[in-house]
Structures are given as C-alpha cells and as structure tokens.
C-alpha cells in the first residue's frame, strides 16, 4: 500500500523532502519504479566537450535528458551557483571544486546523495572520497577529477647543471643552492604567495589536517605541525634567497618557465596544459618525478585542484540527477570521453587505465600517465572547511607579506589560522579546541 503510493506520487515531491536519512528510505522503492515522467536536468560545468558526453547519456536515457551549460570556472562559478541557489533557481547539477563544496554544503545549496552514491563508493580512493563527504556520513557529490601533485623538472637543464632529481625536500633545498651557485640568473623553483591551492596540496603531502569535525564542532588547524614544518622549509629557502618568490601564472613566471630560468614546478597532473601555453619553447624538455618526500622512502603527495559533480538541494529531480552524476563519473564510456574530450584526470580509480596517450606537451614521455599514477598512488587529501575562501584570502595576504619581507612563514600561518577561526566564530560555528 505504502509502496504503491510512493510509486504513484510524483517522484519529485517525495524527493524534495528527502535528505540525509530520509533519502535512504524513499530511494529504495523509487529506484525500482520507472520514472513517472520525463525529466530535464540542467548541468553547469566547465569541462570542454561535456556536451558530447551528455549526448551519449541523452541517447541512452530518453526519460532523463541533461542539458550541459558551460560556465566560467573557478571562484566565479562558485559565486554564481551560490547566488542562484539563494535566489531559488539553481541548476540541477553543478561542477563543484573540492574546496568550494563545503561552502555549498554550509549554504544548504547541495543535496546529500548518499543513497545513489553508495553503490559506486568502491570506485574511488580514500583521499578523493573524503573530499565529498567532508568527514561526515553524508555524500555531497560524485568525484569527477583530481589533481594529485608531482614534480615537473627540466631534464635537459638538470643535466647541464649536474643536478640529481631530488627525492626528499632536503635534497630539493640542496639542489636549489647548487643551481644558484652555478648560475645566479636561474632558480630551481619559486614559492608562490598567490596560490593557496598549491600550498594546501603541499600541506596535505606533509600530513596536514586543516579542518576536521569532532562531534558537533569544527576543529581548525591550519598551523598544525606538518604545515608549520612545510612552511618553515619554504620560508627558510626564501630567506636564504635560493628560491624565487614570483607568483605562479604571472607574465614573469611564464617568461621564466619559457626561458629556462626556472627548473622545477611542483604541480598537479593538469600541469601539461599551462606548461604548453606558457612555456611553448621548452616543449619536450620537461620530465616528471614524484614530489620530493619529507622522509626518504615514503610516497606521499597532495591534491591541487579537482572537482566533483554535486546535485542542487533545490533540484526537483535529485534522484535522476544523482543517477546521471554517478554514470558520468564511473561509466567506462563516459570516463573515456571525459579523458578524450575534456582532458581531465578522472577521480575514479579505473579511469586512470583509460589514459594511454601522453599529453601532447609530453609526447616523448610515452609512459607519462603510468608514471603519474605511480607517483600519485600515495595521495592524501584533507577535509575542507566551510570557509575555505576566507582562509585562502588570508593566505594570499599573509604570505604576500611574509615573502616580500622575508619574515617568518610560521607567523603567517598563525595569521591564517586566526582569521579562519575568527570568521567561523563570528558566523556562529562551533569550534572545538
């Protein structure tokens, strides 16, 4: 009797109220029932060629039609989505960068899709899965791509200057000194005070946990011991003058990369893209290696970038949307198209085997993806908090100052910690000590 009513009632009506625990109860019977009506879903994303992937789905699922809408990526897209959600008119599906997801959740803009996500749980590694659960019982999105970090280096210039590929950060520091001695115009690398995402990735590698949930309270530890150790390391290099301080993605940085004045870039798997456009002259001269480790013999790395596909809390077709999101990010055909058309690094573990052709910029590194997968096997992420934007902004201000003045990086970390906690306290979040 009850089942009957559920199936007959418009799916949407039942699902709108379904959240966390509730969704599980209603999802089981609804899954077996055929969709009562044709559904049209809008999907905001910035993956090139997404319409081709969507076309495959639309052909196979006439009752659930998806419309892909291309957005400007990054912070702009996040702001736009939050605004649309607040105005009560968000898209059904949204590409959400991992660090933006908690602010979506905190604004009650995305739905818990645990029921739909549970069957594909084992398709993803522990690290990326934590990014969509935020360490809670809920699941706020299906991971799409990830940005595990590795070390990009100029193989040719390493030979010229007689440098070994550094396996530990200690060796990296030594190499930085050697380079400066051999050619004062060249730096081994640069510390960017404008890219908190990169810094967060390096902190993850060191074993940091900036945010965590304990009971009903948030624990914030931006200046925890691993991060402080990592920050002090870079601060020491900056103070010593053996590492440059020009920010990434500036015209100066592009020029230095192109002219061979910068020999390494600790970056993520998506680096071939920026390298190809910023340093075309150096094509074929770069190689990859694991990120230098804190202790010899370890194999850890962090994530810089990456995103999940989330379902809007205000969507009338949450279940259909979740179904599409899981298909998009776990189905072999969809993953293959995402790799081919969108040049993404799939978050699903089986997705990596689809990466066969190396990026054009690395065409003479035929095993680029194999190396990348090996390098990033030990990737660890952390839970992002509800005000990453505040912490990231504080990072830029504090580390701008610290690099310009060559002052203590540990103190700069304390500034970020204080700004982050102050903002959360002001908003009324429970903060655990």
């Amino acid at each position: 009797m009850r089942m009957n009513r559920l199936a007959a009632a418009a799916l949407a009506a039942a699902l709108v109220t379904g959240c966390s625990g509730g969704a599980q109860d209603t999802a089981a019977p609804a899954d077996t029932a055929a969709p009562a009506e044709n559904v049209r879903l809008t999907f905001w994303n910035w993956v090139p060629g997404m319409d081709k992937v969507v076309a495959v789905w639309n052909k196979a699922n006439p009752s659930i039609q998806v419309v892909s809408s291309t957005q400007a990526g990054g912070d702009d897209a996040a702001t736009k989505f939050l605004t649309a959600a607040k105005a009560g008119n968000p898209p059904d599906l949204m590409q959400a960068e991992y660090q933006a997801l908690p602010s979506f959740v905190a604004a009650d803009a995305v739905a818990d899709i645990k029921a739909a996500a549970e069957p594909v749980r084992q398709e993803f590694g522990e690290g990326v899965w934590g990014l969509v659960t935020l360490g809670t019982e809920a699941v706020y999105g299906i991971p799409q791509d990830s940005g595990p970090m590795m070390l990009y280096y100029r193989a040719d210039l390493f030979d010229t200057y007689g440098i070994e590929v550094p396996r530990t950060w200690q060796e990296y520091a030594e190499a930085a000194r050697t380079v400066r001695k051999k050619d004062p115009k060249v730096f081994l690398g640069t510390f960017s005070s404008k890219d908190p995402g990169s810094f967060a990735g390096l902190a993850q590698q060191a074993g940091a946990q900036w945010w965590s949930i304990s009971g009903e309270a948030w624990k914030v530890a931006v200046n925890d011991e691993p991060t402080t150790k990592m920050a002090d390391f870079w601060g020491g290099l900056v103070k010593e003058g053996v590492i440059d301080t020009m920010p990434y993605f500036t015209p100066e940085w592009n020029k230095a990369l192109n002219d061979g004045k910068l020999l390494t870039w600790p970056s993520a798997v998506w680096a071939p893209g920026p390298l190809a456009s910023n340093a075309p002259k150096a094509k074929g001269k770069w190689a990859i290696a694991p990120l230098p480790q804190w202790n010899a013999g370890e194999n850890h790395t962090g994530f810089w970038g990456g995103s999940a596909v989330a379902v809007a809390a205000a969507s009338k077709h949450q279940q259909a949307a979740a179904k599409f999101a899981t298909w998009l990010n776990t189905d072999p055909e969809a993953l293959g198209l995402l790799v081919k058309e969108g040049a993404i690094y799939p978050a699903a573990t089986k997705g990596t085997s689809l990466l066969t052709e190396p990026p054009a910029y690395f065409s003479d590194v035929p095993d680029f993806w194999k190396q990348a997968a090996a390098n990033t096997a030990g990737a660890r992420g952390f839970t992002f908090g509800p005000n990453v934007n505040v912490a990231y902004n504080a990072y830029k201000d504090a580390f701008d100052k610290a690099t310009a003045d060559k002052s203590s990086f540990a103190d700069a970390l304390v500034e970020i910690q204080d700004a982050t906690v102050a903002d959360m306290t002001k908003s009324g979040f429970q903060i655990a000590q």
Partner: protein
Amino acid sequence: MSARAAHATRTRRRGGLVPYLFLAPAMILFALFMVVPIGYTVHLSLHRTKVSGLGLGKGARKEVFVGLDNYVAAVGDGELWAGWLRVLGYGALVLVVMLGLALLFALMLDTARVRLARFARIAIFLPFAVPGVAAGLMWGFLYLPSLSPFHELFGADLLSRTTVVYSMANIAVWGGTGFNMLVLYTNLRAVPQSLYEAARIDGASELQIALRVKIPILAPAIILTTVFSVIATVQVFTEPSTLRPLSNTISSTWSPLMKVYRDAFVTGDLYSAAATAIVIAGVSLVLSFGFLRVVRDRAFGEAQA
C-alpha cells in the same frame, strides 16, 4: 475659505501635477536603481548570518538582526584605517601632480603660440579613454622587473613596498590628467578675449596674465576638478586590484573599497561589506562637502557680491 479661493487652489494643484508626470520616469528609475539598492544595503548592514552547530545541512544558516555590530566592526577595523592612510598618501600625490599638470597643460595650450595644439590636446586626453583595467594591466607589465624597460632605467623594483604607491599614482595621473586638463581648458576658452587684450594693453606679460587673470578665472573649475578627484581617490580600486596579482606588496585590503570587494565577493560576507560601503560613502561625503564648504566663497563667488 471662499469657494473661489478653493477653486484656485485646486487648479493650481492640478497644474502642479504635470511636472511630476514628466518627472515620473526619472523618479521611478531613481527609486529602482538608487533608493532601493541603498535601502537594501542599509538592511544588509544591520544583519548577519548565524549558523548553528556544524553549519551543514538544512536550516543551519539564518539571517539575524545585529543592530550596529557591523558598523562597530567596520569602524574598529585597523586594516580599514590603515587602508585610509594609504589612500590618503596616494591621494595627496595624485591630486597635486595630476591637477598641477592639468592646469599647466591647459594654460600652455591656451597660449596662442603653441604649435600642434590640437594634436597635443588629443594626445594628452587620450589616456583618459583607456579603461582603468587596461591601463592598470599595461602599466603593470611595464613595472614587472623581468619585463620592464624602466627597471633597467631606474634600477629599482617599481612594485616594492616603498615604490608601489608611486607606481599606482603614476597610473592615475597618466589616466586622469587629460580629462582635468580638458575641463580647465574648456573653461579658459569661454573667457572673452577682450579681457586678455585689456591686460596686454596694461602691459601684462603672458606669465602675468596666466597667474593673475587666468588662474583666478579658473578657480571654480579647479575646485570642481578637485572635488571630482577627491571622490575618485577615495574610491580607488582599479589600479591596486589589477596590480595585485603581479606583486606581493598589495594586500586584499589595500584600499577601503578593496576591503568591501573582498568581503562581498571573496569571503562572502555581504553584511560587513554593506556596512563598510556605507562608512566609505560617509567619509566620501564628508571630504567632498567639507572641501566645498571651505572653498565655497571662491567656488561660487557668493561672498564677493
């Protein structure tokens, strides 16, 4: 009141409606795009979101009335006052150099002997036509140590902590001089030539004419351009924002308006941003009206009569 008198009043009233009808479209637009947004800003500035617990999930976040808390926070924020100080230093530089140059150019172009006056006028005015962001980017590239031709010339980092304010002022002067020059120059052209002829017959040199005749005549225009420039300086935003990604000496709260932008669009705190915006509007009003009050007699010649 007699019937006649009442009738007259009514007629006058009916006649009085017509201008309002003509005004209506403007008033409606004014209400829609000025009064309502300002009202909403005031509303926002008196509120704040409060979350409960972890702040995750449904209904964890709601808007609460907090009275003047946001204003207290805005006024008590050391960063905001540090921003005002920076803008004050920057503004003093810009005002003196830009208006000085504008006046000089206007006077020079107004002397009959200048050749290529039309070309010079356009050349000086042209930078004003360049959008602020484009100008900021262009100068930013010129300042960047590894790309800059000036870097070799001056042997100094033009984006360092001590020099960045001059670099920024330079962009504003480059962009603003032409506009102010044009305002002053146009005012000069409106002066009857007979005045200068009289001065010349009295034996005044061109320099004396400039100092004793032209500049006094220009006083109201100079005051007007100063007020415009003061308002523009208080709202300085474009130059530091475009230079910020290129340098690590410009914080996200370098100028007061940048703090508003950061609060509203970077950290998502519309409520603080609204309060700070209103404080800035207040300071802007006090400065421009204060200045006008001080120089009112010269500006409008009221006391001369």
